[in-house]
């Protein structure tokens, strides 16, 4: 199996072993050993809960700068619509295009068309689907990875349609190689991302294979330059291009978590945001509930993508700005619809392969695993069950499992070992 790519790094020197990230991790992927956090790659779903929980700034997203794409002949920005909610109201989307060009991109992509195309593909998918319901939206890469790690049984319910950013990447390569006479490899399709999970999904798609995109830059990486330049363009009225990538309200819908639901008026849908809520709903589906719903849209971040971990502004402000932008725009744009009608029947939007369960590395034959499980059950029975986390594992049953696997010792529990308590005192002693 290929090694998994993840988007976060723990700076050992800055980590003070405070347990906050371990407690925040929804998939029990963090352990704290000798006062330092470490992440178990197989269980990490790139949600970034650890990043948000770390008060010391010891966990950082591994980001790229635009300069790292300089070896491409032509760089095209595919900005997440969330970007357009990041600027003062007088700065219009067309000014932001100006800012992106000033930041070093050679072109800004008309992403609204891809969003519409994928919306139609999703609606058709839901209407045609005859398998177990509800089908689950593939938009949020964290949700896809959560299914791979914790709910492999439900993977078949995942909508097997490319997310819009991938369709955009494919079309960017096709369009510009034709227009400029360049090879597709010379053109960089770069997503401007509101979250690190998308960065990871481009580096290593959940379904395997290769992304159509060449990489991404986070909103924070371009924000300052774009802000200065876009403001200047708004103030002087001097612009490199008159063109706006946001001509209709429907382009912004996804970012406001109000996407394709109005197209599914005869269907029942659920929209869920926030990882703990998503997990609760998935647990219900696994218990056979919610079969009456046709479509389930989930986002790991409770504010949707506007609250991603690579955004700059306060989520409420971003949402309010996107909403006010939406209010001024017509619902649809005739030019976009024309292009959508032309392209939709001729393109394939389906994923080349279905995302597979992320199997853990299996150690030992079945007999040995049963022995290990029994041992874990015996150890769990003598642990206090308080899930205090002082042992460095997020829950007593996780410590029991780690001990049975030889990865921890029962003496790591402060209830069972005085030495452990003393060790913790040493590690966490406050300066006099």
């Amino acid at each position, binding site marked *: 199996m290929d090694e998994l790519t993840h988007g976060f790094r723990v700076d050992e020197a800055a980590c003070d072993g405070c347990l906050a990230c371990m407690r925040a991790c929804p998939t029990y992927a963090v352990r704290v050993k000798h006062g330092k956090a470490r992440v178990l790659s197989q269980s990490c779903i790139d949600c970034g809960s650890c990043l948000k929980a770390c008060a010391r700034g010891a966990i950082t997203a591994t980001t790229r700068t635009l300069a790292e794409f300089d070896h491409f002949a032509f760089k095209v920005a595919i900005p997440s619509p969330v970007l357009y909610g990041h600027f003062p109201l007088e700065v219009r989307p067309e000014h932001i295009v100006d800012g992106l060009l000033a930041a070093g991109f050679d072109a800004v992509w008309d992403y609204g068309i891809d969003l519409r195309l994928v919306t139609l593909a999703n609606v058709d998918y839901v209407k045609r689907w005859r398998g177990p319901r509800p089908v689950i939206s593939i938009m949020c890469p964290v949700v896809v990875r959560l299914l791979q790690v914790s709910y492999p049984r439900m993977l078949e319910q995942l909508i097997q349609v490319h997310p819009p950013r991938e369709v955009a990447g494919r079309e960017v390569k096709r369009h510009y190689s034709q227009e400029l006479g360049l090879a597709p490899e010379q053109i960089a399709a770069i997503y401007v991302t509101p979250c690190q999970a998308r960065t990871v999904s481009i580096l290593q798609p959940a379904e395997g294979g290769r992304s159509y995109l060449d990489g991404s830059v986070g909103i924070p990486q371009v924000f300052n330059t774009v802000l200065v330049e876009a403001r200047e363009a708004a103030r002087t009225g001097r612009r490199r291009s008159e063109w706006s990538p946001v001509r209709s309200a429907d382009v912004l819908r996804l970012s406001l978590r109000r996407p394709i639901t109005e197209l599914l008026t005869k269907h029942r849908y659920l929209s869920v945001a926030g990882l703990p809520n998503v997990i609760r709903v998935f647990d219900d589906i696994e218990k056979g509930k919610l079969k009456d719903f046709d479509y389930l849209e989930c986002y790991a971040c409770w504010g949707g993508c506007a609250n991603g971990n690579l955004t700059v502004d306060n989520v409420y402000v971003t949402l309010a700005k996107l909403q006010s932008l939406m209010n001024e725009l017509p619902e649809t744009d005739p030019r976009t619809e024309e292009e959508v009608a032309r392209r939709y029947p001729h393109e394939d939007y389906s994923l080349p392969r279905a995302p597979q369960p992320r199997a853990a590395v299996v150690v030992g034959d*079945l007999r040995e695993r049963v022995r290990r499980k029994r041992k874990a059950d015996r150890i769990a029975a003598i642990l206090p069950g308080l899930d205090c986390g002082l042992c460095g594992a997020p829950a007593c049953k996780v410590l029991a499992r780690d001990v049975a696997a030889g990865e921890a010792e029962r003496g790591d529990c402060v209830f069972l070992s005085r030495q452990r308590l003393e060790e913790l005192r040493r590690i966490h002693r406050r300066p006099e």
Partner: protein
Amino acid sequence: MAEELLTCSFRVHGRDFENAGEASTEIKSLLKDLEIDPQTIRRAVVVAFEAEMNVVMYADEATVTLVLTDEDISIEAADSGPGIPDIEHAMEEGWSTATDEMREMGFGFGMGLPNIKRNSDLFAIRSEVGAGTVVSCRIDLDDHG
């Protein structure tokens, strides 16, 4: 001869819709802890879930027993229910005696038993009207278990 490695059983109560699915959820987490192949877990959980739902919908009390050997997983649901008068009918896809109330909750579409059979490598059902029903299934493990 297969060697028995682990046995566990769960009580399931008829009409207890609130806790419906708990036994199969526990079976899932047990098999996951044992690092059984996800596709096998999937099949076992579908079998356990449908068997459990049949009990919840139609029977009074049942014991769902899971036996793990080094070669296969057996799941047996033995209930003290009304029994099935016509098993051949019950095995047909879409044939159901579910009430409107059950259907409103999203159950009882006549796919339960066929679904169990489809996901088992060996399937047997015996039933006596007035006494109860026993559904027995076996799912073979692949090489790595």
